């Protein structure tokens, strides 16, 4: 468990811990054990949207073999999944279903926005029916650029997510969403309005970028 980036137990240095481990004594904490375990068994939802889904399948096949990272168990039901890989263009017709799937997944859950379309609308951003990024409705942990990203990029994103999980604190103000009562854990499903989805974005999750203008110009 020396791959844990977080600081070791107080009162004992990392070198001493490594020395103890060589002697067959494992010194750990509940937090380390918990995050280490959950980071290596992230089960993705078997959910493909568009082109990127093919590369997601390719990542689970023999050449790239996502099983090396403990994520080969693609679950068809959101109730059994930990990770939502938004793999492709989210249209406005599809966005309510994606948010509903996210709501149906039990905590702790993570979201990877795979590809340019899921991040911002990508090449189809100017389309009238395309959502300009899934992070308007659900919190995204990892963004993977590319159109489509290579399977290696997806694996890199997964490793980044694992590092993020291993850095979680179980208590205190830095604890993740599912361990804190003061953070929202339900995400309203948007509805079809007269012209656009209602609401056009979830204000708890997404803040519109602030444009800073150069005063001199």
């Amino acid at each position, binding site marked *: 468990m020396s791959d844990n980036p977080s600081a070791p137990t107080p009162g004992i240095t990392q070198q001493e811990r490594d020395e103890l481990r060589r002697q067959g004594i494992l010194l750990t904490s509940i937090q380390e054990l918990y995050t280490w375990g959950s980071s290596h068994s992230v089960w993705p939802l078997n959910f493909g949207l*568009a*082109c990127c889904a093919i590369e997601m*399948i390719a990542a689970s096949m023999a050449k790239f073999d996502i099983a090396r990272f403990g994520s080969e168990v693609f679950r068809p039901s959101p109730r059994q999944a930990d990770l939502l890989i938004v793999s492709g263009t989210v249209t406005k017709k599809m966005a309510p279903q994606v948010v509903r799937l996210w709501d149906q997944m039990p905590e702790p859950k993570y979201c990877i926005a795979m590809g340019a379309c899921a991040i911002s609308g990508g090449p189809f951003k100017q389309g009238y029916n395309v959502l300009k990024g899934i992070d308007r409705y659900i919190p995204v942990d990892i963004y993977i650029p590319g159109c489509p990203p290579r399977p290696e990029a997806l694996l890199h994103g997964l490793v980044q997510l694992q590092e993020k999980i291993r850095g979680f604190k179980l208590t205190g103000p830095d604890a993740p969403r599912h361990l804190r009562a003061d953070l929202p854990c339900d995400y309203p499903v948007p509805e079809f309005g007269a012209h656009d989805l209602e609401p056009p974005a979830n204000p708890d999750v997404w803040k519109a970028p602030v444009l800073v203008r150069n005063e001199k110009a």
Partner: protein
Amino acid sequence: MSANDFSPLAPQAGSHVREVHDPLHGELLEVSMGPHHPSTHGVFRMIVTLDGERVMKLKPVFGYLHRNHEKIAENTTYLGSMPYTDRLDYLCSMTNNWAYAIAVEKLSGQPVPERAEYVRVILAEITRLLNHTCLAGFLMQDCGCSGTPLMYAFREREKILDLFESLSGSRMMCNYQRFGGCRVDPSADWLDGARKLTDNYGRFLDEFETLLTGNEIIMARTQGVGALSPELAINAGVTGPMLRATGVNYDLRKVDAYGVYSRFDFRVPLGAHGDVYDRYMIRVLEMRESIKILQQALATIPAGPIMDPKAKLRGFRPKAGEAYGRIEGPKGEIGFYLVSDGSPNPYRYRVRPPSFVNLTVLEDMCLGQTIADAVIILGSVDIVLGEVDR
């Protein structure tokens, strides 16, 4: 009327549909399959009305991946639409590129050098291998052979994608064809790689067929399921392997003989029953024919320029007029209809997507079948939602 009235080989379109609440015969069950369903090959939804396990009614719902392809293409230049055609049918970007290039070349009267025609044929046939291999894998996944055939298929796919990547720089979205030729000249090394792939592909197909073709479970599962009659297929405008599985001899490579296809010796495999097994077999046999075309094309590819030196890419403005370019894609006839008003953007841009047209007969094939069979019937149609919804 009982469920036994339905012969699986002769489903009667529309004639046996009864009310959802029929006190005499019990309740029918409406099931919404999709848009999130592992077997719908993307975000496609079927509203299926079931009597027990039998499908009585099937209503497809499209549009979950409608990303305004045609509208965007009308607001961008002719060349600017080329990368978007990659994302139509994202398994076969090379053939989409080619169909679009043919349409624009017809519109502007642009000739194509001979070497480019050969390269296009080579890439289109490699794409056919890629698409049919993946389709066979996905179809077997739908049948319940979880994993193994798909893993074999994707192993071969990676070899093909390595070729595509070394040629065009991208695995899936190749963006390779241009009006009047191709973007990069394939090197001698690349052609050797393609020869090696072609020579080894037959051995892979032998291995794949040993697993699948004579497999008793697969035969019991797919033979006589989802039969499509040649009359209905012609009336509905079905093309590609779906049409040829019903026994209709129609292949644009022979009918139009576009490009340099008239120089190659190959046969068009035809089915007899039009069921799921025939559709699988047609694809396997087409791959064998594609290997033959590839061997001939790679042996006789001439030297010369890859782009017409007079071809104009930037500031391209075809004269006013209209053109329809079509080729035999792996899924059927993929065509692009363009209307030009002399400006840099097309006035109207329309895609004729094979998988969308082939999908229109889904209900006729599924009526009277079990719900589990509807899954493999959909799998055998070979749809890609990027192309269906555009």
